[in-house]
Structures are given as structure tokens and as C-alpha cells.
């Protein structure tokens, strides 16, 4: 057995750099996530975060997306203040993340792929299954676009009874990432 150990070390030594090289990553710090109630209310519940970070591992299709909750900007500054202080509690839960895998991802091919993974917001983790995402492969860039629906009550957000009618039950979340190749 002892004589095999140097041989094993050599094999591992060669395979680790090869593996790292194969793990080609694409990334962005300027991704956009918007959420919108899509209701015709007097003051629309709509916000955008345009400094979303994301890293995509091309080989396995694994993706990690992070948005800082304080980065969501509303048209109405009072609504933004309430969102941060009362609902999202952004001092306690400063970030929202998606981590998971894009199945049938292919670096050679632009197509609709399915994302499955975990979304974390307000300290609650929610499993997302087979969310369709449009994946566009361009020169050294990958565009990812998609939209899905979330139910507000899934995220342990306490809504006072007096404003309950004004807070939508469902929220449409859209994601728009323009990832560029990481230059090693």
C-alpha cells in the first residue's frame, strides 16, 4: 500500500489544477432583480435592485445569486423605508440569495433552461423547482432572464392588519443577469 501513496499524490497533484481550469466561471456585479405586484394600485408595489452579484459555474450549471436587500429602490421613498424597517427587516436579514443549478445548461447553445434551487429571503429558505430561464450565449457573455412568482406569506413577513389589504399576496420577481467570463 505504501508504494502506492506517492503515485496517488502525483495523480491528485495533476488532476486538481486540471479540474480548476475546467471550472470556468462567469460573473456579474450589475445584475438586475425587480419585484412587482402587477396590481393597479395608486402607489405600485414595485422595486428594482441593479447591483445584484452572481457567479455561474459553466461546467455544472451551478449558480449563486446575491442581492443586498437595501439595494432595492422604490419610487416612493416612504415605501422603501417601510420595506426595509418593517417587512424585509434588512438590518437583521441584509441579503437575499438564490443558489442552485440550471439543468441542461450548455455553453454552446442559447435556449430555455430550468433552474432548481433555494431562495433565501428574510431568514426563510424556499425551494424553487424548475423555474424556466432564458439563457443567451454571446461572445464571452451569458445572459440569463426569467420571471417567477412568490407568495408573500411564505416568508414570515408580519403585515399589520390595518395595511393588509394594501400588501399584495403574490409578487412577481424578474431576474436579468449579464454575466461575463472570469479572466484567470
Amino acid at each position: 500500500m505504501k508504494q502506492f501513496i506517492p503515485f496517488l499524490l502525483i495523480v491528485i497533484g495533476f488532476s486538481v489544477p486540471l479540474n480548476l481550469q475546467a471550472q470556468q466561471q462567469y460573473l456579474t456585479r450589475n445584475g438586475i432583480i425587480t419585484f412587482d405586484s402587477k396590481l393597479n394600485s395608486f402607489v405600485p408595489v414595485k422595486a428594482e435592485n441593479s447591483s445584484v452579484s452572481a457567479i455561474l459555474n459553466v461546467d455544472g450549471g451551478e449558480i449563486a445569486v446575491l442581492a443586498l436587500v437595501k439595494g432595492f429602490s422604490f419610487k416612493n421613498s416612504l415605501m422603501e423605508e417601510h420595506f426595509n424597517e418593517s417587512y424585509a427587516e434588512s438590518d437583521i436579514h441584509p441579503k437575499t440569495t438564490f443558489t442552485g443549478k440550471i439543468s441542461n445548461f450548455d455553453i454552446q447553445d442559447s435556449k430555455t433552461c430550468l433552474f432548481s434551487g433555494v431562495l433565501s429571503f428574510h431568514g426563510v429558505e424556499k425551494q424553487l423547482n424548475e423555474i424556466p430561464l432564458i439563457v443567451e450565449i454571446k461572445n464571452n457573455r451569458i445572459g440569463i432572464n426569467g420571471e417567477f412568482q412568490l407568495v408573500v406569506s411564505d416568508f414570515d413577513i408580519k403585515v399589520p392588519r390595518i395595511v393588509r389589504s394594501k400588501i399584495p399576496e403574490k409578487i412577481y420577481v424578474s431576474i436579468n443577469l449579464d454575466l461575463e467570463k472570469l479572466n484567470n
Partner: protein
Amino acid sequence: MRKVVALIIAFAVVSTTVYVCFFLDRVAPSIELSSAELIYKFSMDNTSNKSNLSENNILLSGAVTTVKKSALIVDKKIFCKFKNGISDVKVGDTIRLLGKFIGYDELFQEYKLNDCSIVNQ
């Protein structure tokens, strides 16, 4: 008749006060920090300190280490996203900018400032 006029005036005064207090965009005060001071303040495990950072505008000074289309990285650690494009800034410049601190990005291990604009030296 006088009661009606008094009521209208009272309503106008109350609604103007409410509007001024709650709906006008209030200009947040700003605190001046270097990159190291910002990181130090954030690293102190104290929620009120962290919210103090995000409630105020940050007047940040430091050296530009990366220039992107609508963002700069200052002192390798502070990612500053600009409202508009950036011109006449190059790597190595010492800069002062005003922005809104939104938190720490664990994915890139950077501190993020939004809505930045360059302040004249």
C-alpha cells in the same frame, strides 16, 4: 360659514405638515470615511452601528483600483455603483465620492455603495 373656512384651513395645514414630514424626500446627512474606516465600522458587531452606516450617505475617499462601465472599485474592497456613467477616472486616482451604503457582498467579498456620484476635490 366661518366653521367651514376654519376646517378647510385646518385640513390644509395638517395635510401640508404630513406631506413635509413623511413624503418629501428627506436628504440624509452624510458621514465622511476612508475605506478602512468603513470596513472597521461595519466589522464591529453592532446592529445600530450598521444601520447608522446605511441611514447616512457615505462620503468615501480612497484610491481607485478598478474602473468599470458604471462602477468603480476603491481600495480593492469597496464596490461603488454610479447613477450615471463615469468619465475621467483611471486606476490609481485618489477619489472622493458620495454614495449610499447597502451592505457586504459575501459572494465577491466586497462592501457595496449605490447611487454614487463623484464629489469635487
